[in-house]
């Protein structure tokens, strides 16, 4: 199972990114880590290039809110991304916010899995479940 991951925007918080990388590998995924400071186009290009089944975006400084709004528009420009599982996690807003509202907002942006301030292993368990549901794990 191939996963493209990275931190979106001008966000340089690298620690969680390294731990996500480690944990995904330990669970047997084939990881393509674009690292920090990655823009949306780079994520989608990497998914096309690698043929990844999962795109896992993380955000620490809350920038994802701004980028999230552009996901649908940008994704529609690619022909082969409809089946890709889109996951986002981290600190998804600047400051604080209501988790339910944040979840539904990001689902509207086109994400299948939204993990706002969810610990890493629970998030990865959620991914596992979804993959099993869809019969592609």
């Amino acid at each position, binding site marked *: 199972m191939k996963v493209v991951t990275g931190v979106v925007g001008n966000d340089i918080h*690298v620690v969680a990114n*390294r*731990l996500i*990388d*480690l944990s995904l590998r*330990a669970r047997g995924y084939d990881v393509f880590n674009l*690292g920090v*400071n990655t823009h949306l186009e780079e994520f989608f290009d990497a998914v096309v290039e690698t043929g990844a089944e999962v795109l896992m975006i993380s955000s620490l400084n809350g920038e994802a809110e701004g980028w999230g709004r552009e996901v649908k528009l940008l994704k529609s420009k690619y022909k082969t991304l409809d089946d890709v599982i889109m996951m986002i996690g981290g600190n998804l807003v600047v400051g604080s916010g209501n988790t339910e509202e944040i979840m539904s907002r990001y689902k509207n942006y086109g994400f299948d899995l939204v993990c706002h301030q969810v610990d890493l292993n629970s998030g990865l368990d959620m991914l596992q479940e979804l993959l099993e549901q869809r019969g592609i794990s």
Partner: protein
Amino acid sequence: MSLLQEEREIILSNEYVDAFDFAEVAEFVSNASKELFISHHFAKRQKMLVQPRGGFPTYEQQYALYEYFVNANVDVLPLTIDSNTRLNDYATAKKMLRLSEENDMDMLNGYPLVTHGYRTTRKMITHFDKPVSLRHGTPDARLLIETAIASGIFEIEGGPITYLLPYSKNFPLDKAFLYWKYVERVCANYSELNEPINRESFGPLTATLVPPAITIVIQLLEMLLSLEEGVKSFSVSFAQQGSMNQDIVTGAVIKKLARYYAEQIGCGDAAINLVYHQWMGAFPTNQDYADQLINLATVIASMVGADKIITKTRQEATGIPTKEANAKTVADTQYTLRILNGLPNVVDEEEEEILTLEVKAIMEAVFNDPADTLWRKVFNSIKNGIIDVPFSPHIINQNEMITIRDAQKNIRIIERGNVPIPDKCYEYEKAQCDLTKDTTGIVNDIIHDIGIMQ
């Protein structure tokens, strides 16, 4: 005209520089007060020098900060540069400085030195007559350090590795080496006019579970790159690591090996100093606990025998500290240093031997790279993972090394990647840790180990 001088004229013919007068600056450095040179204070070796951190956008704010520091009995003043200037975006720095001056709000996270210029800044620095240390994080610091020295700032922090690998994802490392070569040469040339300009490396790196062997190797290499260009005064540094014993061992080994490698390249005449950073990782939000952590760091710096300590503040967890909080740390640290007497001499020969073997093995691998110059050898060694910095965001870094803390909170290497840690040392490091856990357990330990001081 020398090639270097040609390059200097190009760098200084910048639309953001107000007519740089080379002759006048050389005259100023030649006649500058000895008090402004930290190398002069290091030579006296009277006490551990205390240096806080701090930079504000406007001249008036910076001046007020310095007044607070001087009242708190500071030894070395900091000048921290804003992030636009660090990235050579002088246009934005200029605009944000104007906005900061016109509105009562800080639009910059430091002092935009190039924008203020050396004629203005020099007035402040000569007024206080204390050594000033330039703190930035700039890969291409050529214009910045020219402006700094012309202002009377005679200590320059940074280096091609330590100011790049922790801060940047894709600024080209080879360019950074060449830009820093310019910095070293300019510092070396000015050093002939008066007391030496001191260069300081930035040992904390990512401040996240970096093992001492990697820290020391990078300190030594930046020192050698500096000394080979003619710099005569250099400070190696590292930050509090989480275990007092590991800090003491690190201090002993870095002092011994800095001297050894400087002599190896025929630069035994250079002064080499040791700088200790108070805890650089995540701080407790409880400000009283933060004060305790700062105090503990000061005790360890004394045990380590540092020549200078760089302080944090009780507001570290919440953002840029006020000048009051910043000055409080200076006064507290001076007090602790004054009452810390009769310290025991702690030596851990076994740990020193292990660490020395590790550092020497990595250094040897770097020197054995077939490239023709030291900077190219170092570049290749980073590229192929002989040097691997945990948690660096830079694309050139290998990210194969994994470190955790043992029961004594020493940072241990449990996966060496491509770093040539000798087998004997590697087995020793791993034997200190519980490696029966699966990766999920280890990831949880890493998260815990990063946050130990919170």
